[in-house]
């Protein structure tokens, strides 16, 4: 069996920063990092599915784990996407979010993968493909505040991806989160 070398140059819990369309102007690119807190908290309890999904749908690569090539040869093809494939972007989650009373600055990118990755109990490869029904994938981004910016930062670095969630879908092509008009403040594009 041919396998990718473990890590394939990547650390499975430290995905690279990812490019995304700017919330203000879809034609411009910004850069987001992925929260260590999210990846390591999941890892600490051995919950792997969301980690695999970050790789497949946000980074745009299969997770760098042993024998992942088994998935690539599977007849059911995982939807490998990046935030550039987002079908919508919203701002404001209408709930307390760390130091924000109403989470009004939080960004939500919406993706429409058809097949995702979840944990498998198989000993060869811990990931398997799973078909999705009428759901949308939401990716939450906490914008970096001016006060947090390091002088030597990449000027494109605009925020931190804090989590992803599959949510019930509404409408088709594109599938948007159910009741998105109520749950978010503003649709940006």
């Amino acid at each position, binding site marked *: 069996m041919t396998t990718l070398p*473990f890590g394939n140059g990547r*650390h499975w*819990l430290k995905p690279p920063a990812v490019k995304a369309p700017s919330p203000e102007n879809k034609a411009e690119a910004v850069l987001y990092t992925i929260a260590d807190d999210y990846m390591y908290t999941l890892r600490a309890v051995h919950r792997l*599915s969301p980690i695999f999904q970050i790789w497949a749908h946000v980074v745009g690569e299969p997770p760098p784990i042993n024998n992942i090539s088994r998935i690539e040869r599977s007849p059911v093809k995982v939807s490998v996407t990046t935030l550039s494939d987002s079908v919508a972007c919203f701002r404001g989650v209408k*709930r*307390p979010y*760390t130091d924000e009373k109403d989470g009004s600055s939080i960004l939500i990118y919406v993706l429409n993968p058809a097949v995702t990755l979840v944990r498998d109990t198989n000993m060869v490869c811990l990931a398997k493909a799973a078909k999705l029904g009428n759901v949308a994938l939401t990716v939450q981004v906490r914008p970096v505040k001016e006060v947090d910016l390091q002088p030597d930062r990449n000027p494109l670095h605009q925020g931190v991806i804090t989590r992803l969630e*599959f949510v019930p879908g509404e409408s088709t092509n594109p599938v948007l989160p159910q009741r998105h008009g109520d749950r978010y403040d503003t649709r940006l594009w």
Partner: protein
Amino acid sequence: MAHDLDREPSSSQHYVPQAVYFTDSDCVEYVREDALSIYDRIDDFLTLIWDETHLVLVGFKLKGFKYVFDAHLKPLFKLNDEQFINLVSAIEAHFTAVGNEIFARGERARADAYKAALKLAANENVRLSGAMLKMAA
């Protein structure tokens, strides 16, 4: 973070359901299984988590947890020698605050969602450990 966590995942490391606190998104989450999860927002505090069929409740997420902990749960935490907080208490504390509004508006589905989360938390004795809470505090 400990170096052990950096090791590649292994099939011998099974997911054991437990509540976790995510600092960067300020929420506590409990899911029964490591599988496809569908998050169904109920209100600004509670999200129910369903399995892929959307028929079986497998968990819940409590949002804005830092405020609820500071406002309602610190005394309980001290009573437990700062070892854990039972999430039934967290859900009850918030429901006490919003219950009148829910019943006044006749929001039966919302009330049922709280009942479902409470039942799951009670049946599975869902607790957030002190180590996790120190991150929230």
